[in-house]
């Protein structure tokens, strides 16, 4: 494994110009994913986790656009590429898995046709060869009797099976990076584990880097190698998953961990973080988390904290790691 990250996002800023001024949806987000590594990205809805994935693929809904920062893929800068050049990168170098497998597939084409389309778009294969490859892919993602299933239409598959098809589509061109946006959220709990295990297995086998976007800390803890925590369009903490789960540095991360139910441990009431995430057009000065932070200090209200080494990773908090440890 080389040191060069597959995906390197530097100081990414995404803005949505609107009638009432410009909304900053992502503010100074920096993260990287190494080959074969799974980076989990968590946060509440609206925190900007999906937005980060979309911005990397340049699939932001207009008028949203990248207003600053850089995106590097395998040592090549891609945030300034033209749309036709991006079309060649999507699917070929970045695979995508979307949240809802029920709506990700075109209902009017057989899954085989959609697979063959993707395979032939990104490789110079004959129709027959592409079809053989499609059967191979379906087998790889664990669909029984793939040679028969290939003729079937999306509505003939169950939710879990459809998500496997979506994964097959994402991996069709053997991309170096897969962005999985809530890949298990729409599925049954029992299927969730299968899908995350499959994703993990395939990516480890092929050395694919994965950016796994989810709000489910359980999925992150099981699947990811590192985790990035987002809040109000900013990165608040990033580090090895075991460390962040066991010893979160940022008060927000700690709040998130506290809200995970644990089997066997009977608590009368699950901990929750009081208040709600601020609207993106009304982010307070200083640290975005300051209105909800139990440890808020004067400095937090005035100055915005940068990411700095804390614990085993990095966190954006003024409060000393040691101090937070004590307070907890």
């Amino acid at each position, binding site marked *: 494994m080389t040191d060069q990250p597959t995906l390197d996002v530097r100081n990414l800023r995404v803005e949505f110009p609107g009638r009432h001024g410009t909304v900053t949806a992502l503010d100074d987000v920096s993260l990287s994913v190494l080959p074969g590594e799974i980076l989990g990205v968590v946060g509440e809805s609206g925190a900007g986790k999906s937005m980060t994935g979309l911005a990397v*693929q340049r*699939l932001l809904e207009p008028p949203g656009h990248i207003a600053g920062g850089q995106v590097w893929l395998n040592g090549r800068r891609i945030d300034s590429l033209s*749309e*036709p050049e991006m*079309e*060649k*990168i*999507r*699917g*070929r170098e*970045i695979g*995508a898995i*979307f949240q*809802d497998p029920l*709506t*990700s*597939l*075109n*209902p*009017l*084409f*057989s899954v085989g046709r959609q697979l063959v*389309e*993707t395979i032939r*778009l*990104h490789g110079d294969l004959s129709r027959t060869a592409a079809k053989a490859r499609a059967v191979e892919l379906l087998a790889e993602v664990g669909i029984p009797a793939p040679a028969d299933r290939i003729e079937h*239409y999306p*509505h*003939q598959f169950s939710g879990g099976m459809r998500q496997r098809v*979506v994964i097959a*589509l*994402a991996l*069709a*061109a053997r991309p170096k990076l897969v962005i999985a946006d809530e890949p298990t959220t729409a599925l049954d709990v029992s299927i969730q584990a299968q899908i995350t295990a499959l994703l993990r297995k395939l990516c480890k086998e092929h050395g694919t880097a994965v950016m796994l976007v989810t709000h489910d800390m359980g999925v992150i803890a099981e699947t990811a190698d590192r985790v990035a925590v987002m809040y109000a369009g900013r990165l608040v903490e990033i580090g090895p998953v075991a460390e962040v789960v066991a010893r979160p540095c940022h008060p927000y991360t700690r709040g998130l961990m506290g809200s995970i139910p644990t089997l066997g441990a009977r608590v009368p009431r699950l901990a929750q973080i009081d208040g709600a995430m601020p609207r993106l057009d009304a982010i307070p000065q200083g640290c975005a988390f300051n209105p909800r932070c139990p440890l808020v200090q004067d400095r937090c209200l005035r100055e915005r904290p940068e990411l700095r080494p804390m614990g085993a990773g990095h966190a954006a908090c003024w409060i000393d790691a040691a101090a937070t440890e004590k307070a907890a």
Partner: protein
Amino acid sequence: MIVFLIKRLANAALVMLAVALMAFLIFRFVGDPVQLMVNEQTTQAEKDALRENLGLNDPVAVQFLRFVGDAVQGDFGVSYRNQQEVMSLIAERFPATIELVLLATIISLVVGVPLGVYTAIHRGSWVSEGLQFLSIIGVSLPSFVIGILLILVFSVMLNIAPAFGRGDVVSLGWWTTGLLTPSGRAALILPSVALSLYQITLVMRLVRAEMMEVLRSDFIKFARARGVPRWRIHYVHALRNCLMPVVTMTAMNIGSLIAFALITETVFQWPGMGMLFIQAVTFVDIPVMAAYLCIVSFIFVALNTLVDITYALIDPRLRMARG
């Protein structure tokens, strides 16, 4: 699929039977056919003979069955006005209307679908806003105004297309066509454009609305994330998902166009079924009206059935569910 087909066909037959009953009732009970056929000098004995001859003394059910039996064989009796077989009158006019309507439909699809896709993709640009505005005019202008304007501009002022009639026609067995002669083709231009203008705007607006809906769906976004090029997303993935309502509307419109082309036909003195019907109404020519009713309904029912079958061809989910 076969069960589905049989069901649809049985359904269609039932509807046709109901229509035939209506036509029959109009034919038999709106005025006394014998009174309408005879003149003042006819004796009572002659009237009775005619009544017996026409089978009007048989029970109503028998009369209806005979009417249906005859209609199935294409026999709608004799026109009151000129004592010609109704069927041969209609057969004479039918090709003119069909050619006009089909050409108008083809024009409306060939022009309307790409315009709809274009305005959906480039919404907000001044070209598509301009097209939207024009389409409002197209929808609200009555077709006779468009027809008269076209005649004024292209026949009277520019003199590049004939204003009325069908031009020379070539007879192919029972079908006469204007498509094979230069004058026949020239004569088709203005009426078909006049007839299609409204359809173009309808198709365009429908495709635009459907496209905008479909382009928002997840599978379009996922197709983009798979690296499918833009044109392919628009014309293969999105357009096919818009086709269902377009097919329905087009088919329904072919029916309406055939039935109601009479305004355009009148403006352009087009010797089609619409003109025949107008004349039949003027002379209370009930057999012609009854036949017209049956034939137009038959076209509607046939198109409806075709639409259902086309649905199944477009959408695999319907194919499976009903097959």
